[in-house]
């Protein structure tokens, strides 16, 4: 044998792959038998409390079965999920089963959801339920947050809605608030100052990077800020 090392590597790689596939198959078998019903059908019925034609706190606006959700380690694709930004609820539209001849809309129990991904205009957006102590002095309360980056520090976005009255009608205005969690401390990112405060242990380098890349933090796209955090992570790993 000219290259026994290569052969061994191939065989090892094969066996690892096969074992992983078998574990996945077994996990799916387990899920199918233990949790055969629509796993998302767990929770209270959701009721619209707003006038959908006027304004809606639900995202995405296009109601299509294009979301995916990870529940107890299993991925469910192409399901119709909407996120109620005002009440911080994950809402599931069950298009397959009618109850009492009604389309059912369920508030999915947040404690069974590992994470979910919505197709927003800005692209696929991943959300996860983050838990914060109730008595903390920080800025955040437990709930669903968009997870943008999880390097040395975490970059999250809070999608929320403001309830307003316009022309005598109640409307919901969707807004996003950006946060960085570094070493357990939460920083609200409003502009360059707060960003440098969040990344204070490498502030000069980050500042230089912002100048070099011509990034204006206040109006920067989230991908640009993600790039800043990737740069910061690289700095920390050096």
């Amino acid at each position, binding site marked *: 044998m000219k290259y026994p090392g290569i052969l061994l590597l191939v065989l090892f790689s094969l*066996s690892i*792959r096969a*074992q992983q596939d*078998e574990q996945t*198959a077994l*996990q799916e078998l387990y899920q199918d038998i233990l949790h*055969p019903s629509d796993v998302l059908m767990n929770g209270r*019925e959701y009721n619209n409390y707003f006038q959908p034609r006027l304004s809606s706190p639900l995202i995405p606006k296009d109601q299509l079965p294009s979301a995916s959700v990870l529940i107890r380690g299993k991925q469910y694709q192409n399901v119709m999920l909407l996120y109620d930004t005002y009440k911080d609820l994950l809402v599931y539209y069950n298009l397959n089963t009618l109850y009492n001849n009604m389309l059912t809309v369920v508030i999915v129990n947040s404690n069974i959801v590992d994470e979910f991904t919505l197709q927003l205009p800005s692209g696929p957006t991943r959300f996860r339920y983050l838990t914060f102590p109730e008595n903390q002095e920080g800025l955040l309360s437990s709930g669903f947050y968009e997870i943008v980056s999880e390097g040395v520090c975490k970059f999250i976005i809070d999608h929320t809605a403001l309830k307003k009255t316009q022309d005598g009608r109640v409307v919901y205005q969707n807004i996003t608030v950006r946060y960085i969690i570094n070493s357990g401390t939460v920083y609200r990112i409003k502009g360059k100052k707060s960003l440098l405060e969040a990344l204070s242990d490498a502030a000069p380098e980050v500042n230089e990077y912002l100048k070099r890349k011509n990034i204006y933090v206040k109006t920067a796209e989230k991908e640009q800020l993600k790039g800043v955090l990737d740069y910061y992570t690289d700095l920390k790993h050096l």
Partner: protein
Amino acid sequence: MKRLLHIGFISVLYKAVCLLCLVLLCWMPGYSQDNPQNSHVDGQENSPYDFRESLYLQTDRDLYVVGEQVWMKVYKLDALHKKPDDFSKVVYIELLNQAGYPVNQLKLHIPDKSGSAGLTLSDTLSSGNYLLRAYTSWMKNYPAGDFAFRTISVINPFRNMERIGVSGSVPDGEDGDTCHTGQTDSGLILELISDSGMYGAREGIRMNIRATDSIGNPVEADLSVSVSRSCLYNDHRANIMDQVHSPGKEEHALPPQHVPELEYLPELEGVVLSGTILNSMSDKPLANEEIILSLVGKAARCQVYRTKEKGNFYFNLDDSGVQELVIQPADSAVSNYFVELEPDFHSGYDHPLPGPFYLDTSRLRALNQSIINMQVENIYKPYRQTNRAGSPEISEIDFYGEPEYNIQISDYILLKNIREVIKEIVPMVSVRVKDGRSTLWVENGVDGTHFENKPLILVDGVPFDDVDQILNISMAELERIEVIHLRYFLDGHMFEGIIHFVTKEGKMAGLEFDHAIFRQAYAAFSEISSFRSPEYSSDSVKNSPLADFRNTLYWNPALRTGEDGKTSFEFYTSDMTGEYTLIVEGISPDGKSCFIQKKLIVQ
């Protein structure tokens, strides 16, 4: 010369590209599916049957006296690669006597790659050899010979010991020299660093450990440490290397020729409670019927399952301790049924049982001292240490989360009965009487109309639809009423509102079902005790008159080396002088095993 270098570079590049292609080929989707070895069950792709797991069971020593605890550690391994794995989350451990009957059983929740437990040896046990066996639910699909085993010897000085044979002096493998470095054929090296091998009574001992591979790189190893009187170890103690790399075990671990029918599911969350529900009149299975599992208690923990064709059902339980569970059809009109639960533990034993126990006559004196030690320990231990059960707390969260209304009865003036409470205090709920029977109805919280169907009515977590009995519960017994005034979906089943009556005792206030019901005490996870030993760090404790005659000085099943391959541990000697044996053994993340022992003299 430049051309030669160029050719050499191309050759290396060519090899690298070939290698990359081969590795990518292995990882391409579908490759392993096309491999016939992976699809030998009716052409099924990635047959789950191909996945095998194995366990390694380790104890703090080999010989025990009744009344003592056997401290154990279980490592879970991927059977093919012998690497630590955390696939199954439940491990069953049984202590079998020489006839193969289980005399003690544990059901352990081990979410990680290893876990530990203590098993108390009852004083009803006879002296002799016993077999500890450990397995997962998934392993029950395969021959019991693949389970993990360990033989321990038990002495009961309070029962007839005439049946015990005696053997002559067995040459001791150890000559008293301290062994500071242990290496295995798998290449994991443990180095044990201590200041000396001689210690005084109640003296602190600190040991440093370094784990490296064969070329000196640090290894993050999962280890356990035991320190016990040397007479309580066998001369040729089975160690982790024997079992993890045993050729016999590997033969067993090969996939079977005939794939068995899938009977046992792996337990990937908690204990899988399975069984069948049958019509008691016809013995036919109740197929495609929604049934509810509930646990009696102050929190509502219900699950709904639609039975399979043969009336099979599966629920996941992750509570510890003994729970009282109730299984009943969701449709209360279905009454003639009975439930059969599948046993959790493996019933057969197609593996060798422990042979007769022979006492080594050269150790009689030391063993006699160990028996005395056990009795002294059992007298003084309650005064000295706080060895409390470290069982996980039972989840007290209702499946429906926060209710819309939570009526604490003590917050209001004492009313005459529950009917009045509902009428006066509980919002969105009303009592109706029809044909002499009372029913409860919930208003829809969205539009204020009454739901068309009856709500789910729970009493101490259990569905109970005899409203007249509920209304007769004494006000002194009732703690609170919770109301969900929305439709609620549970495992696909819809309830139009939920009303939960919680009593102060949480035991259903003596309510009686009007038909036969499956209600049974069920032991989910065993409560786990943890090893505690005294610390003589201060003079006041060191000079305490409380006797300390521990046979096992130290047991630490959760010792891990860090990224630098290093760790350390500390323990104290007891009042008992003599020779002790310290054993450290464990596994690295890539499945390399290690074992090291050292003699300690306490003077």
